[in-house]
């Protein structure tokens, strides 16, 4: 979610005159600093070895070292990066097509836009369950193909959940995130797209030229930011990989939780350390996303 678009012509920010007004920020900032920041900081402290339950209180880099030299960790990291990246790219491609289609055909249809927002509110667990029901070897898709005579009973259906390529996970992620990206892109298209395209047409740009030289540059900042945010979200998500992923390699959030909740208390700092790596990757992506949007705004883009 990038900064909201101001639609009204009277929406103009005033310079902040009374510093006392910053107290308006106090509750929110307190929550972010104490709960979020505190949570991460305490995680760091534990990752550095502070584990009173096991009687450890000296800070050491030993746990981080152990995690970062664990080949399983790297396998998880690599798999998570691959899956998040692949899912993001698929979602972005579908979203651009959807946004263009919606802009042209259904720009003002509240019904279609409403339906399109449904996946945004559906909890991850529910879509994970639904994907299992659809794509498992005994799922609806397999039964459907068999019913159509394309598949003999009991065999031949490819493994789509708990599989090495993460197809089920990707399907769930794409279903959930395409509406988010599409709506972000659609907002930009509707704010400035139509008239600029007319300008392009009168200036002798053909259809593909208009897409490449006008539409793409206009949607790029929003698209890039939304893509980065979606990537970050997928990178850190737990429920969907837990239900739809395989046991090896696990996606990183699953790996982290498993380590954290392991009976062996010594595994806990490793889980936390992995969690901090996740937080770092996600934070980097978010910072990049915001940077992209803010840079575009400074260059005069309407976002």
């Amino acid at each position, binding site marked *: 979610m990038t900064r909201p678009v101001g639609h009204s012509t009277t929406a103009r920010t005033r310079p902040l005159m009374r510093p006392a007004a910053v107290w308006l920020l106090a509750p929110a900032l307190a929550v972010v600093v104490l709960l979020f920041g505190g949570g991460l900081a305490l995680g760091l402290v534990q990752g550095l070895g502070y584990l009173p339950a096991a009687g450890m209180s000296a800070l050491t880099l030993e746990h981080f070292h152990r995690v970062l030299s664990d080949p399983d960790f790297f396998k998880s990291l690599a798999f998570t990066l691959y899956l998040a990246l692949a899912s993001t790219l698929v979602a972005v491609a579908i979203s651009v097509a959807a946004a263009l*289609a919606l802009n042209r055909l259904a720009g003002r*249809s509240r019904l279609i836009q409403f339906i*399109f927002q449904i996946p945004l509110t559906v909890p991850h667990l529910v879509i994970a369950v639904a994907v299992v029901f659809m794509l498992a070897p005994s799922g609806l898709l397999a039964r459907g193909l068999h019913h159509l005579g394309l598949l003999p009973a009991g065999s031949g259906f490819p493994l789509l959940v708990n599989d090495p390529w993460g197809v089920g996970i990707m399907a769930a992620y794409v279903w959930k995130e395409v509406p988010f990206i599409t709506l972000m892109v659609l907002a930009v298209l509707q704010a400035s797209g139509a008239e600029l395209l007319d300008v392009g047409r009168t200036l002798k740009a053909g259809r593909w030229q208009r897409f490449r030289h006008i539409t793409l540059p206009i949607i790029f900042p929003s698209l890039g930011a939304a893509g980065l945010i979606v990537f970050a979200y997928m990178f850190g998500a737990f*429920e969907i990989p837990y239900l739809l992923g395989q046991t090896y390699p696990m996606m990183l959030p699953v790996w982290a939780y498993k380590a954290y909740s392991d009976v062996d208390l010594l595994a806990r700092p490793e889980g936390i350390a992995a969690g901090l790596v996740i937080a770092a990757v996600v*934070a980097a992506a978010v910072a990049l996303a915001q940077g992209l949007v803010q840079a575009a705004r400074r260059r005069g883009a309407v976002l």
Partner: protein
Amino acid sequence: MKRALLGAAVAGAVLLPFLPLALWAFSQRWFYPQLLPEQWGLRAWRYVLGTAGPQMTEALVQSVLVAAAVAVLSVAGGIPAGRLLGLYHFRGKDLLSIVLMLPIIVPPLCVAMGLHLWLLRLEMTATFAGVVLVHLSACLPYAVFVMWGVFSNYNLDFEDQARSLGASALDVVGRVMLPLIFPGIVVAALFAFLLSWSQYLSTLIIGGGKIITLPILLFALMGSGDRPVAAAVSIVFVIPALAALAVSARYLGSRRVLGVW
């Protein structure tokens, strides 16, 4: 014509996952490779609403209470922050935007693992308050962004006009600002509610198995392999989300909330 096709494609893609849920929830016997249940029935619902009734009810109530508390607190903190961000510009605003977005995207897993220690010290683990706090860390910033959007379209001149007509500061807040931003408040509350409603891992870590919310119950049921029951619970779990969307769609239509996106 093309528009109808597009609408059908969108509706189809979006609603498709709900199909197996519905089919499983209302099936009595449905073995592979049958395309449709051999026998329809309400066994799953009888279990969910009857046998597991107390468990379900407890989880449902717990979820509602936690989410409601989180929503109220999120909106309370979100309104002033959103007002500041939506109406004024100042140095560091860009950085602040990033800082506020991090708790929403960084998985609650990372925060909960660390926070657990602190809450343990404060003896707040496995408590309602502890779970509310950990949810709040992600939900309040979300509410801030919604209110930021609302205030971006807010015309401060209304307040100035009210003051010039003799209204006190309190009057302005209660009689001018709150009514004007009311649709935004509803949307912010709904989104914060939804976010808390769907939390799983953070509730598990902080709740320590004592605070059972609906997603935790659902997870356990999925593990048991009883598909109809899992489907039924999923439906119960998703209905408030859809209801919240329907309500906020009514408000999102209003120009004042358009800034959310």
